[in-house]
């Protein structure tokens, strides 16, 4: 390591393109939005930077704060579900035979091969009232009723199949987020688990721990870096999502992302949109910091 520090030219030369890219395409627009949050609309497109705090005042309206809170809750639940679903998947890929491993990894990232919009519409086709899921359930319902009627149990099934209302509500949004962001959880988890020293697991078994205990006391703590990256990679985009909640959510499933999108587009209130964006950014920072802090405390107590 030390010898690399003594050769800084390598770093500087390889760093330049990335740094330029970030400056031009990330920090500059971000700075611009930051400025716009302090502006006033002076016409259909013109915005004067007057350093007013009105936009932030407006953004702190209880209506928006409620949406912030709701977005956090939905993103947190979706992230938790992602973690619970992704861990066994990542573990299974890690312990899979070396020959099928690349195939399994490809399956994990396969959804990326189609556009997000296409995937979300496909999900609508599956989940809507007269979609594939309900058709399938109706078929099962009819079959069950045909069997049950001669036995005198037909009453139990009612006279009409009532489709499940699974689309256009909050669970549908959560489901959509889990579906779309699952690979972002699986991949970092897999990367950490893959590097895990297998002899540690054997040592745990050797010392008398069951597989279940080994999972909780050795695998999960050592997968912590993967859990941290996965949670950040899922939670942050989930917090700002607007497409999924727009398409899969009902009228009451609006998230803060939808509001921000509307300010920039339909409502044409860029300063308010900018202020809301930055509030979301700050809130995300605080949430992640809190989470990292509680994590660290738990780790210390466990050691």
């Amino acid at each position: 390591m030390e010898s690399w520090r003594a050769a800084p030219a390598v770093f500087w030369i390889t760093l330049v393109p990335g740094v330029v890219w970030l400056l031009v395409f990330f920090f500059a627009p971000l700075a611009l939005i930051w400025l716009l949050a302090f502006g006033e609309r002076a016409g259909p497109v013109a915005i004067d930077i007057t350093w007013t705090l009105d936009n932030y005042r407006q953004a702190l309206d209880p209506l928006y704060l409620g949406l912030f809170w709701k977005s956090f809750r939905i993103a947190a639940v979706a992230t938790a579900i992602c973690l619970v679903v992704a861990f066994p998947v990542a573990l299974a890929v890690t312990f899979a035979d070396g020959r099928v491993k690349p195939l399994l990894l490809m399956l994990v990232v396969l959804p990326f091969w189609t556009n997000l919009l296409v995937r979300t519409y496909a999900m609508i086709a599956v989940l809507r009232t007269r979609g594939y899921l309900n058709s399938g359930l109706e078929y099962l319902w009819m079959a069950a009723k045909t069997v049950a009627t001669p036995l005198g149990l037909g009453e139990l099934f009612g006279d009409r199949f009532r489709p499940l209302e699974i689309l256009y509500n909050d669970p549908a949004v959560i489901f959509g987020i889990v579906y779309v962001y699952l690979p972002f959880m699986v991949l970092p988890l897999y990367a950490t688990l893959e590097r895990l020293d297998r002899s540690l697991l054997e040592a745990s078994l050797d010392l008398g721990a069951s597989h279940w205990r080994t999972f909780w006391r050795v695998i999960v703590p050592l997968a912590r870096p993967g859990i941290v990256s996965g949670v950040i990679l899922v939670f942050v985009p989930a917090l700002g999502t607007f497409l999924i909640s727009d398409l899969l959510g009902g009228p009451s499933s609006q998230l803060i992302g939808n509001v921000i999108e509307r300010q920039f587009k339909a409502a044409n209130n860029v300063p308010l949109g900018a202020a809301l964006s930055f509030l979301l950014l700050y809130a995300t920072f605080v949430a992640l910091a809190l989470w990292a802090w509680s994590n660290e405390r738990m780790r210390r107590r466990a050691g």
Partner: protein
Amino acid sequence: MSPRVDVSGPPLVRIEGVTRRFGPVVAVDRVSLDIPENAFYALLGPSGCGKTTLLRMIAGFEQPDEGRILLDGEDMTRVPPNRRPVNMVFQSYAVFPHMTVWKNVAYGLEVTGVPQGEIRRRVEEALALVRLEGMEARRPHQLSGGQKQRVALARALVKRPRLLLLDEPLSALDRKLREDMQMELVRLRHEVGITFLLVTHDQDEALSMADRIAVMNAGRVLQVADPRTLYEQPRTRFVAEFIGTANLFEGRVVARCDGTVRVRMEDLGEVRLPAESVGNGTHLRLALRPEKWRVDPERPPAADLAVAARLVEMAYHGDTSRLHLEAGGRRLVAVVHNARRGGDPRLVPGARVWLGLAVADLVVLED
């Protein structure tokens, strides 16, 4: 070495015709061994000969394709590793990096529901045994290799296993530390009264620590014996060459008469061997340990065979010197003790010397 080892009693571990294949590789090939209670048993063999695989089958991490493994007379073959009264010290230590020293040692007791008070007592005891008191709060990355080694040892010992498996536990340590740990292991073994099974490819380690050694090569066990027998009476050419060094000679039977056999040792001369040590063949292979040569500038009068040789090269090892010699068109190795300061001034490269041997020191090999 230990008078407590009773080889005649029922063995603690019995390995019966165990075979393990990895695809085309036969890692362990029809191995049968009895490990007596309280023994310090060593599995010795070159890299890749199947030592780790055999150990992992005893621990339960690998299943034999054929054969059985019995512990205290009970078939262990299908028992999962966490239910075997056997603990292992891994080649890589496998100390849990996310736990302190204390937690590492306590782990095996916590997961099996030992009461807190007893855990505290036993962990303290185990840490004292491996001399790690005062390091309880450290994490593995704050420990040296030798200290990690001790944590792994304490972690296994605290479980009070019937059998402790050690997979080359000292190979990553530097020489001085290795020797200290060797002494430590021998001491520990006497204090805790647990049967040790040590895997090593270091013959010095096996010879100095174990009271029984099984020599393996290419998945097979070639010879099981105590260190002295193994060194002085190797049965095969492989064992003779793997344990220490040996001068090997092709022998041809010249004549047999009343209880002795005259054997011609290549171009070096003839010796008379007792008939029962030779067998019926006409060709045999003989081995002689290098330190058994009597190296003398004058012809040794009392030797059973004396060979004139030329000293080619000399390697100084401090306590001994290793002489590479040439006699009758072949290379020989001899070891002399540097008992006198400065050594023998006449032993310089190019010098003409005599090598004498006593027939009693010659070993007739089986192959």
